[in-house]
């Protein structure tokens, strides 16, 4: 996989993200909005977002061992990372996605 030695992604990496939601709860909608903003700002044109509604497909929660909603799973670049919450704390979201070092 095309990643740096410390695990942080490269500028050319393709991003594959999976967002788990529960219908259109306020936090799910906020997570979608915040995620799209982060993607457009940091890796426009290189990302794919799959939104999984666990009200419709609750069984899919097992795949990524989801316990709270919304949860974002970074499938690519490796390694898989999980970020729980509506991504309203941009700084924390960027650290979770390894786009920024923890201060």
């Amino acid at each position, binding site marked *: 996989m095309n990643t740096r030695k410390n695990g942080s992604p490269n500028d050319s990496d393709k991003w594959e993200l999976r967002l788990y939601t529960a219908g259109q*709860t306020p936090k799910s909608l906020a997570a979608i909005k915040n995620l799209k903003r982060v993607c457009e700002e940091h890796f426009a044109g290189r990302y794919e977002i799959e939104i999984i509604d*666990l009200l419709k497909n*609750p069984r899919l929660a097992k795949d990524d061992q989801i316990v709270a909603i*919304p949860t974002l799973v970074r499938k690519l670049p490796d390694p898989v990372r999980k970020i*729980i919450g509506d991504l309203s704390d941009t700084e924390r979201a960027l650290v979770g996605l390894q786009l920024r070092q923890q201060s």
Partner: protein
Amino acid sequence: MNMDQRIESRIESMGLELQIESLRAQLHEAEELRHAISHGQVDAFIVGPTEDSKRVLMLSGAYARYRQLVEEMQQGAVTVSRSGEIMFANQAFAAMVGLAPIDIFRVPLARYPRPPTPARRRSCCSRIPARPRSRRRCAG
């Protein structure tokens, strides 16, 4: 320490490192969850085996049931912000405009055909011949 003992010790050390790494990841995830809950960033949980949607526990029970009713009813429904952006659209409205509900979020309502105004509705109705009203019979 002979060679065999050194190899054994190295293997044991590598096993412990992997275990530490795995525990670190679990601790990180538990900390993430605790932080998200304490900062009000989640509003639903998966409880127990995930066989049906009843296992998705919303933080506000009665409100969630009402919300599900609105989401799944046959009539199109939207809520709009003061600036005219769609903040919520149910599945029926999304089907009317041919998009997924989440793709309508923050889209200006003005983009979609407007429903007839009362004046237009009256002018449409005036062209339809009035049907004779049936008489109600009252039992004396």
